[in-house]
């Protein structure tokens, strides 16, 4: 059954009221500002409160700054030894749990790959009392002696900041001592900021400060770009790279799916930055533009149409007929399979409804795929998005910076004396803009959602359960923590962080995978088993019908 009749008795305002009515007044007031009924007006939408503190005691989906920094951004880096300075837990939980895939490819089986390893200083109480600097230093040395990596990254967990271990100085000293190993640190204590988002920012800063631009050896390639904010979950990055290769586009560096140290180090040689996950990576995009003169555009490779559109944008940017033709040829070659799959599956998915509460961009990206399946997104939101991710970058100037955000370093970048070179003149950029190519722009989620759609920031478990009970979506998308409470309600739940164990869902082949997966989920007969026959028809006729 489509969502329509299910929704009939509800309007968004009632639902919003339902969601917050049980809260203590203070909480209710705060949550009210984070729940927006979309008006989808040309000239923007009402303001939503986002990137604010999580309410203590309210069961949130959010993680911490360390998770955003070590887990999300640095997690996928293959040949960097990621050493966590702190008690064992933080390092343990971030060990292989995000399904970032990596391919030591050319170097083959002997290529450096530390992603299957977990490195920690395993701080003990005496380290907390007397300080952990010596132990960190020793740990860096032991890691170096065992593996001789080209780079070691140090991550701070909560106590480190409090006890005042100077991880940056230690790293600097060890870098000098070791000579052939770049060592640097991230002050990504879990208590910083209000969510993973702060960790992204901190990671962006240090990667840019310590790695980007380190290698000026020219990278070959006709159309050189970086792909920013793609983490190769379930092999998404592999599929996108497959398409790039087919188009003749050289992806110098992905931030940070399937990435290597050298890719970051040479990223400044690209002529365009294509930004996937705006939330987690826009800082690097901006800094690359300021320091090296590389423009950036927002792209989205989730959804076949979106992929085609993004490829066309890139081709348009390079203003090269050969590339434009190749891109069109590739699209023409890839789309038939996609359309065939859609045609077969659409009859079974069309008219169904979806909810998405993930990340800082995925909720937006995946709406594309559900559109292609004829499914309506009836509610969506981000776990750690900012206002600009909802309302678009046009609101950036108006976002008030609160205490939590102010604590996150904002590094000032200037044009590189020797290496800054604008890839396009102002005029060229203007011309491209007039042809519809938007630079440094992101319009956010809201405009893409229908009027009346509930947009909810930092959705929590209580609201999720209520939403599902009230609106009965055909599918709900979030993360592992939410998966089973939703499914207990008899609604299939798809993880859009880890993809359960599916993927890739990006690009053309990914779209087909996703169509099939959603078809499997929303049409699974499993949900019909929840009630036993005698629950359907409980009365006890004393006489059993024998043969």
């Amino acid at each position: 059954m489509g969502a329509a009749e299910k929704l009939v008795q509800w309007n968004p305002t009632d639902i919003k009221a339902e969601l917050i009515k049980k809260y203590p007044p203070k909480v209710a007031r705060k949550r009210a500002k984070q729940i927006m009924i979309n008006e989808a007006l040309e000239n923007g939408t009402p303001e939503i409160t986002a990137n604010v503190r999580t309410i203590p005691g309210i069961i949130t989906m959010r993680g911490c700054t360390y998770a955003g920094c070590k887990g999300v951004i640095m997690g996928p880096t293959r040949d960097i030894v990621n050493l966590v300075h702190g008690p064992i837990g933080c390092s343990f939980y971030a060990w292989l749990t995000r399904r970032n895939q990596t391919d030591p490819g050319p170097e083959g089986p002997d290529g450096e790959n530390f992603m299957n390893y977990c490195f920690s200083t395993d701080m003990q109480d005496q380290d907390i009392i007397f300080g952990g600097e010596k132990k960190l230093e020793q740990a860096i040395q032991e890691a170096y002696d065992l593996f001789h990596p080209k780079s070691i990254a140090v991550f701070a967990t909560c106590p480190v900041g409090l006890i005042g271990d100077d991880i940056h100085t230690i790293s600097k000293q060890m870098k000098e001592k070791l000579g052939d190993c770049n060592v640097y640190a991230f002050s990504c204590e879990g208590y910083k900021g209000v969510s993973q988002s702060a960790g992204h920012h901190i990671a962006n800063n240090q990667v840019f400060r310590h790695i980007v631009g380190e290698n000026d050896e020219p990278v070959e390639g006709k159309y050189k770009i970086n792909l920013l904010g793609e983490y190769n979950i379930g092999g998404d990055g592999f599929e996108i790279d497959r398409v790039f290769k087919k188009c003749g586009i050289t992806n110098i560096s992905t931030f940070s799916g399937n990435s290597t140290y050298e890719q970051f180090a040479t990223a400044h040689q690209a002529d365009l930055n294509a930004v996937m996950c705006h939330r987690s990576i826009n800082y690097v995009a901006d800094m690359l533009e300021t320091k090296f003169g590389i423009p950036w555009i927002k792209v989205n490779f989730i959804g076949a149409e979106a992929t085609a559109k993004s490829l066309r944008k890139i081709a348009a940017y390079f203003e090269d007929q050969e590339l434009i033709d190749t891109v069109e040829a590739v699209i023409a070659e890839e789309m038939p399979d996609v359309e065939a799959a859609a045609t077969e599956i659409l009859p079974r998915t069309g008219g169904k409804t979806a909810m998405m509460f993930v990340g800082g961009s995925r909720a937006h990206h995946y709406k594309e795929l559900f559109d292609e399946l004829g499914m309506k997104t009836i509610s969506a939101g981000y776990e750690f998005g900012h206002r600009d991710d909802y309302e678009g970058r046009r609101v950036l100037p108006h976002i008030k910076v609160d205490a939590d955000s102010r604590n996150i370093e904002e590094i000032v970048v200037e044009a590189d004396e020797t290496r800054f070179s604008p890839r396009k003149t102002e005029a060229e950029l203007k011309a491209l803009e007039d042809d519809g190519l938007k630079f440094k722009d992101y319009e956010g989620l809201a405009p893409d959602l229908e009027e009346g759609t509930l947009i909810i920031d930092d959705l929590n478990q209580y609201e999720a359960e209520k939403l599902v009970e009230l609106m009965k979506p055909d599918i709900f998308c979030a993360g592992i923590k939410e998966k089973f409470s939703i499914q207990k309600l008899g609604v299939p739940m798809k993880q859009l962080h880890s993809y359960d164990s599916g993927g890739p869902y990006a690009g053309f082949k990914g779209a087909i995978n996703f169509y099939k997966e959603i078809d499997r989920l929303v049409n699974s007969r499993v949900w019909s088993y929840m009630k036993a026959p005698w629950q359907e028809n409980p009365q006890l006729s004393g006489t059993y019908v024998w043969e």
Partner: protein
Amino acid sequence: MLLRHTPKEISERKALTINPAKTCQPIGAMYAALGIHGCLPHSHGSQGCCAYHRSTLTRHYKEPISAATSSFTEGASVFGGQANLTQAFNNIFTVYNPEIVAVHTTCLSETIGDDLPQIRKKAIKEGKIPEGKEVIGASTPSYVGSHVTGFSNMVKAMTDLAEPTGTKNGKVNIIPGWVEPCDMEELKRLTKLMGVGTILFPDTSGVLNSPLTGEYKMFPAGGTTVAELKSTADSMGTLALGEWCSADAARQLDKKHKVPCKVLDMPFGLKATDRFIEALRTIAGVNVPDEIMTERGQLVDLISDMHQYFFHKKVALVGDPDQVIAMTEFLVSIDMCPVHIVTGTPGKKFEKRIREITADMPFEVNVKAKGDFFLLHQWMKNEPVDLLISNTYGKYIARDEDVPLIRWGFPILDRQGHQYFPTVGYKGGLRLLEKILSAIMDRKDRDDPETKFELVL
């Protein structure tokens, strides 16, 4: 190779842990708290801890794991978490209305020195904790011990609820330690068969193996009730299964309420189960019923039938101390040879106990407490084994070294069954033997030359 950088030569590491065989205290405290009926575990720290623990427990159980957090910000970290926790109490009881909230600390709140008892007292005074609701707290600094320590600390904190009424309840407290929901169910089945009235705590059965019915219960049917926990002070005694997981709580009840206790090994395998049954038998002064005798005899029967396949097979074993100790004894008792034994949890007495159990084994034994998977892997490269028993992280070693893997312990992230089929008791022993046998025989069937391929085994 997945772990291509692991060298065969072993070099001493003073500061670097690689591929840990433990995690931090709070997750243990959270798991224990889920074994109380109507309990919402609460993590007093930054929200990342709570998120990580919930994710890991969810991946292990494929069940919803509800827990709240104080969501520390930088401010809280500087000025203390009292405000956050008090606010959390208020929100929790208003929105989720649990019977009890079990708070555990984190490295963050411990480092800044938050004082749980004091915060709790204040919250009660301010009416943030409604009448008839309970709050217990355990100090679980991540930089001490391991997840096992955290489990033990939370179980110990449960005894704070113990309230003597003056009249004995005629029951035996049983502290099962960190075992699966189905194991707790099995322990209850055995004590019931023995005709011994028991209070089992914690008890995650009915909580972490709940049915799919179309209804989501944040607080499922299972778990030890607060009333039962209060009554533990009136019990005739406490059997603590596992020195690391359960002894502290038992001794606390003894100390505070004169409830005598005995610490036994976790009842994995024939001998440890014998000791458990023998204890119940003498405490309650009952005879062991035929049903249990039959289960025991079936286990002995299977051991004798399959002894030829177990005999002198080498095993690498990694896990938590109480489990590994019992499993080592079981393996030795069926003439298998655990030659590499690691636990991530610190404790010299672990190594001592293992050395005792393996004393007359024909091979030399490598044993390490506060060890890690990296060391275990290096040992295996130096002396290969026929079988690896480990949590899911062992699969990387198993694939690289082409050794059959039995998943046992915590966490198991890539297989199902562990929450449904017990490995404690005699029946659990049968299941362990079945798993060991299939592991060995599947490999035999894979590797035997065609001339030696067997129909009958």
